[in-house]
């Protein structure tokens, strides 16, 4: 039997005759000859030790059956938060982001044929500016944590100061990422304590730690526990008094009910755009929000920015283009504000379509559903014996901490998972709450039946 001719769906020129034709034009005797400039000693000279490829239907089955082993909604309940939250992604958002015109394109370097992405990103920036109450929002960074890292770097750059205060009730992972990003700048980081009863920032400790060498305060609202920082205006005011910038990290869904960060004086706002129509995706791709107070600060900000302009020959024809590129690495190289190049444009498109779909009324209804469900759940869990829920006395939005009188949070968390309930992520020990506190997140996707199942799983785990 003769060998089947080599064919592959992804390789249109694999056929021997085509290769021969192409080689002729190139003036080479073989494909190997095209690689003859690679010195012998660095040539691999053997096949890669990875399995041979398989046909599409085989790969699809193989990978999908691996994924089917995961315990995920709708075959389980997820009440986890901590920076990635279970929210509903409207079908219309999925429809928009799965258009190949958007997702198979790249950065809109040729503005004339890329107006679709450019306008979408401009719309994203506009919607975010309104939501955040900020003057300028870039067209995305990788995620919340890396945006926070960039923000603290920027604060150091703008103020010339080399110390940052980090709220002790902000996400530990985000604080670690800030550390990785700022270490080379010689930035020192200091933690501001939080009020152990309310879960909110300790104003006294903040005032003690603010000094003329502080570049910024990084605070999250809602904080890691889900608590609402009701004195945020005073916090920001105190930072400003000592000449520090206020960098505020947000869950954008909370801004359906909470005052916009620009409204209380934030200088830089960062946050996680994932709840705006992006699936949890096991931690990414998500959407790093990055916005600044004014145009002056914008000149020092990282990331791409889209502007509105016109056609060159027709000033009545609206058009969009990338702007202020002189901040960026492809122009400024080592003097750039950041090295960021590929960012998360498709996720910004998701957020823009999500926000416009919900709109003024839908977004408000979402906020009310979230805060109602979370309080309904927190109270229900409070009825379970051996549980204090919510643990903190302060106001909260969609996440809350629950403490257990006798059991370790780690045990409870794993026990509940066995019942198909993913909930009660153990509060990291850095917060100093002991090992008996778990974190819960309840959103619009959770029904009273789900919450009942959560309560009984918790009961069973205690």
């Amino acid at each position: 039997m003769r060998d089947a001719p080599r064919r592959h769906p992804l390789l249109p020129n694999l056929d021997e005759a085509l290769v021969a034709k192409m080689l002729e034009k190139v003036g080479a005797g073989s494909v190997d000859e095209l690689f003859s400039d690679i010195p012998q000693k660095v040539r691999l000279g053997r096949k890669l030790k990875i399995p041979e490829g398989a046909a599409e239907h085989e790969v699809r089955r193989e990978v999908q059956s691996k994924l089917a082993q995961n315990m995920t909604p709708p075959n389980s309940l997820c009440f986890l938060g901590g920076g990635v939250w279970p929210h509903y992604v409207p079908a219309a958002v999925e429809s928009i982001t799965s258009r190949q015109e958007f997702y198979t394109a790249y950065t809109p370097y040729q503005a004339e044929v890329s107006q679709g992405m450019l306008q979408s990103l401009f719309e994203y920036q506009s919607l975010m500016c309104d939501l955040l109450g900020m003057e300028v929002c870039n067209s995305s960074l990788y995620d919340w944590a890396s945006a926070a890292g960039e923000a603290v770097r920027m604060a150091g750059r703008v103020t010339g100061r080399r110390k940052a205060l980090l709220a002790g009730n902000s996400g530990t992972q985000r604080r670690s990422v800030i550390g990785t990003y700022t270490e080379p700048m010689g930035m020192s980081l200091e933690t501001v304590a939080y009020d152990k009863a309310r879960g909110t920032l300790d104003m006294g400790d903040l005032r003690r730690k603010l000094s003329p060498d502080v570049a910024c305060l990084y605070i999250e609202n809602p904080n890691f526990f889900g608590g609402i920082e009701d004195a945020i205006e005073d916090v920001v005011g105190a930072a400003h008094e000592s000449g520090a910038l206020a960098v505020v990290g947000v869950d954008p869904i909370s801004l359906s009910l909470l005052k916009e960060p620009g409204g209380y004086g934030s200088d830089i706002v960062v946050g996680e755009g994932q709840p705006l129509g992006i699936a949890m995706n096991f931690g990414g791709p998500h959407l790093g929000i990055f916005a600044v107070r004014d145009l002056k600060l914008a000149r020092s900000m990282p990331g791409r920015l889209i502007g509105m302009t016109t056609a060159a020959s027709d000033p009545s024809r609206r058009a969009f283009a990338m702007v202020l590129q002189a901040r960026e690495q492809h122009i400024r190289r080592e003097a750039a504000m950041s090295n960021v190049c590929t960012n998360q444009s498709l996720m910004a498109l998701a957020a823009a379509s999500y926000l416009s779909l919900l709109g003024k009324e839908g977004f408000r209804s979402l906020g009310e559903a979230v805060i109602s469900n979370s309080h309904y759940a927190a109270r229900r869990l409070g009825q379970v014996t051996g549980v204090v829920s919510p643990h903190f006395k302060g106001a909260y939005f969609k996440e809350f901490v629950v403490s257990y009188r006798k059991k370790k949070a780690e045990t409870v968390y794993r026990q509940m998972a066995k019942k198909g309930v993913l909930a009660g992520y153990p509060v990291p020990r850095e917060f100093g709450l002991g090992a008996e506190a778990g974190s819960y997140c309840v959103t619009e996707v959770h029904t009273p039946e789900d919450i009942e199942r959560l309560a009984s799983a918790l009961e069973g785990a205690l």
Partner: protein
Amino acid sequence: MKRFRQAVWDEPLLKELSKPGRVGSTFPVDKRVRARIRDPLSLVPSSVRRESVNLPELSELQVLRHFNRLSQMNFSVELGMYPLGSCTMKYNPKVSEVVASSDGMKNAHPLQPTETVQGLLSVFYDLERSLSEITGMNRFSLSTAAGAQGELAGVLMIRKYLRDHRSARDEILVPDSAHGTNPASAAMAGFKVVKVPSDEDGQVKARTVGELCSDRTAGMMFTVPNTLGLFEGEVSEICEAVHQAGGLMYYDGANMNALLGRARPGDMGFDVVHLNLHKTFATPHGGGGPGAGPVGASKRLAEYLPVPVVSKGKDGYYLDNSLEHSIGPLKGFVGNSGVLLRAYVYIRLLGASGLADVSSLAVLAANYLWKSLDPEAFPASHGKELRRKHEAVVSVKSELPGAAMSVAKAVLDYGMHAPTVYFPLIVHEALMIEPTESEPVEMLDEYASALNEIYARMKDRTLGEAPRNASVGKVDEVKASHPLTLKTHW
């Protein structure tokens, strides 16, 4: 010339389309919840309560129409050839999208117990092993979100390694042909950038590197093949020279599409590597992201990788934060997981032989396209006698400034995307063309004849203003960034 017209919709902004009283998606509160929580607004302290949110009001159909119309004004890989040099705009297999939209991917939470996500972790573990084998590295961290973040991780690893070995070396060598992200990443990591000149053949010479090395040299960032599309013939000697001087070698994997199954950075002597999965491993570019930029290390530097890494223990796979010397995390959670999964699917579709074919055919396509161009019009800037690798860089011959831009804008009218222009910076009027293995040879012919025709029209001055067939004529980019007219939101 085939006719092409991009759609034109004078599509207003969402806010201009808005009318009070409409909504595209709502979330009513459950009756039973409402009975218990009567006034949700009272749960928000008055000091931080928001009165209203200014968002547009549109129906679901209106939102879809808006974005669908915008999508028609966006050129993409599935519409036509997109040979953007250095970006590897290859075809993104549909099956990857289907698999990535499985519940087991989309709905997985990064903080759920590892025993409940073994399927996904096993995929990441296999992906990590494959990338290590493909590059000749000891281990990869999949956590970095894009190429530039991978670069930052890599230079931070070099920095930490040297600090741990009591060295305060503070200079990183970067060739003059390098991507802008290289010097930007080095600077972010606190290094001073020392530029290494390329020779007239577009090659970095070991001797030049040796002369620039000193006891301040922390390492070198090196792209192979380089941005001129040429293999760096002295790469091993350069690695040796830098190592001898006490520095470490960083491999920028942006152009790895040329070398799959042919050569591995690990065998060349590199200590740290990043890969762009959205380039070489066919994950969609998303209109400017998301990508993924995993970073790999030799044995010597493996403990310095950013956390988490995926490990396998007696109870299965887990996310490992325990690397002794890790530079720490650079991103929240695991990485751009959805992108990692797509790259894994791609590797499974091709396998060992298929990946080698990818590079063979990508290199063949670049050389073929290059040889199809009029050599008078588009002379190679460097190394005329050398074979190209994944891409070809030519210099548009013209007395008029802006010739490369004119060619780029004109080719858009043919229904094809422009090459990368004015990069690398060391090439006058540069066009950087990377066709990839995805383009059938007929498309390569079509592209070459379009460029040749454009040059002929430029020469006899009949080219005129371009583009004329795009959604909009030439965009006023000066006005866009001018302080008096700058508008970044509406």
